């Protein structure tokens, strides 16, 4: 009987997997807002990757800037008449639209790299503590608890005060404040998986613990981690913008969206709203788009979690 079952099951397995994926896609497409978020996300990604080719001006090539064009309102013609500043120019005569495209690049790079780093570190710590338990687990989870009891913004602020300015340093600080979320989620998922039969079977075959952890347990922990990763990406981008706004984030030579807003802040009081406003809109759209996707993913992937 069991042999017949196995024979029946093995050809059916790939089909089941495919329909799972299809089911997931159908569930995802059911929310129009989430689809809108996904489209926006992809659009911003494309804009950021191809920024040098799309932007009408290289905002960091000082030679191409004409100081006569500074603080022009949206829609103005450049003094040579060669181009239109659709979103106006800032105090250094940079085209705001081009600056946003380049700023988007910095923001997305910081977000993606820091979240990937946090994912790897956090998932490793979480899986190891769930698999081995005992002292390893107690120690790692104590660190996670301590870290999560401080607000992320404060830890990042102090870390950056120690490390100094720079894109790489912001990435380190953001990864350092975010790995704990991944560690906690990975441990939670892995503890459930740890005692399931397939893991016991793998143990009986005396596979190495690395293999069991990464090839057997880890793939089953991916869904909750994906939810955390999406929400954390939005969180990381917003956090980086806040840090840059407070003056401890990225350097002036590589402005992110937050830095552009911070630069425009001083002009806002005198009525030149567009210098801070349009980067602000871009930032809000990115963050909200990612969160819409993340929110819906959470609804699909952890139906227990209602909040």
């Amino acid at each position: 009987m069991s042999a017949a079952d196995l024979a029946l099951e093995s050809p059916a397995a790939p089909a089941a997997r495919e329909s799972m994926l299809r089911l997931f896609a159908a569930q995802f497409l059911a929310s129009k807002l989430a689809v809108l978020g996904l489209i926006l996300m992809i659009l911003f990604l494309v804009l950021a990757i191809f920024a040098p080719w799309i932007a009408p001006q290289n905002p960091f090539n000082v030679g191409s800037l004409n100081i006569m064009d500074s603080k022009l309102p949206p829609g103005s013609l450049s003094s040579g008449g060669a181009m239109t500043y659709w979103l106006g120019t800032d105090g250094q005569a940079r085209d705001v639209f081009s600056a946003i495209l380049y700023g988007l690049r910095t923001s997305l790079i910081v977000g993606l790299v820091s979240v990937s780093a946090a994912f790897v570190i956090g998932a490793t710590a979480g899986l190891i503590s769930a698999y081995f338990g005992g002292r390893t687990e107690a120690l790692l989870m104590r660190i996670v608890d301590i870290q999560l009891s401080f607000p992320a913004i404060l830890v990042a602020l102090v870390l950056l005060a120690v490390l100094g300015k720079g894109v790489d340093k912001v990435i380190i600080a953001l990864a350092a404040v975010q790995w704990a979320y991944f560690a906690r989620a990975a441990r939670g998922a892995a503890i459930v998986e740890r005692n399931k039969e397939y893991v016991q079977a793998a143990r009986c075959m005396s596979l190495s613990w690395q293999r069991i952890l990464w090839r057997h347990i880890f793939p089953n922990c991916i869904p909750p981690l994906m939810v955390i990763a999406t929400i954390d990406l939005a969180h990381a981008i917003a956090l980086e913008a806040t840090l840059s706004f407070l003056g401890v984030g990225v350097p002036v030579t590589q402005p992110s969206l937050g830095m552009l807003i911070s630069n425009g802040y001083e002009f806002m009081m005198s009525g030149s709203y567009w210098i801070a406003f349009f980067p602000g809109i871009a930032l809000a759209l990115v963050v909200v788009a990612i969160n819409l996707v993340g929110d819906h993913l959470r609804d699909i992937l952890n139906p227990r979690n209602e909040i």
Partner: protein
Amino acid sequence: MSALVFAALYLVGDPVSMLASPEATEAERALIRQSLGLDLPLWRQYLIFLNKALIHLDFGNSFLTGEPAMRLILQRMPATLELATAAMSLALLIGVPLGIYAGLKPDNFGARSVMTGSVLGFSLPNFWVGLMLIMVFAVFLHWLPAGGRGPLQSFGPIQLSIFSWDGWRSLMLPVATIAFAKCALIIRVTRAATRECLPLDYIKFARARGLSEARVLGVHLLKNIMIPIVTIAGLEFGQVFAFAVVTESVFSWPGIGKLLIDSIITLDRPVVVAYLMLTVVFLSALNLAVDIIYTILDPRVRASA
């Protein structure tokens, strides 16, 4: 904990370079270093700090102004307390009714708009919301001031701005900024709690007894969903109070959050250490208070304890 903060801050640059004028000679620098006790090894500094902090509650003087760090913080505390209290009250006033509504009719268009709006609330960065509010209400409409606390009334050593119209006006934008974010969270918690409680028997029974919907929701339901709401509101109040760094910076609100970031940037260690110690004590006290409120709200907790 205090050792951790102390050591971390010790690594952060040299405060003397912030204090001495750029032309100061090496001898003058050494004198400053000596007068602040910075020439001693780290462990001696830490022991001196512990001795003073534990026995005399003296966290040292600010490097910058020379005033006791604790006094600097306590002076600024009312401003932050005022901001945090007003913001949390507003968030609860708006969040709880909206959350109940969204929980009662989850598939309704209005309820779904509320939930989408709450995504905006927790995803938009705080400083961004503050900036937009300043832009609309201060720069374009000139209705409200963009920063500061307005005129203050003194009540002994405490100064508050909440009792005058101008004070209200300066309070409005920062309060709205914080409340916007906290509201989103409260809506989500209230909605989840409402959906959990609605199918329970006692609600059905209350309806079967023919009680008015207002009484079922306002008394029977509200009593039960208060428990998660109090938890979240308590924790969030602590967060707002202790770490209103960003909002206070945007609105140049002279509270302790602004003091903290200024002190981190100027490397004024005694103030940062005193601030963090005070925050830890405050957050623990708040947790205790939330636990006590539990026992008042929930007879089940009392019975088991």
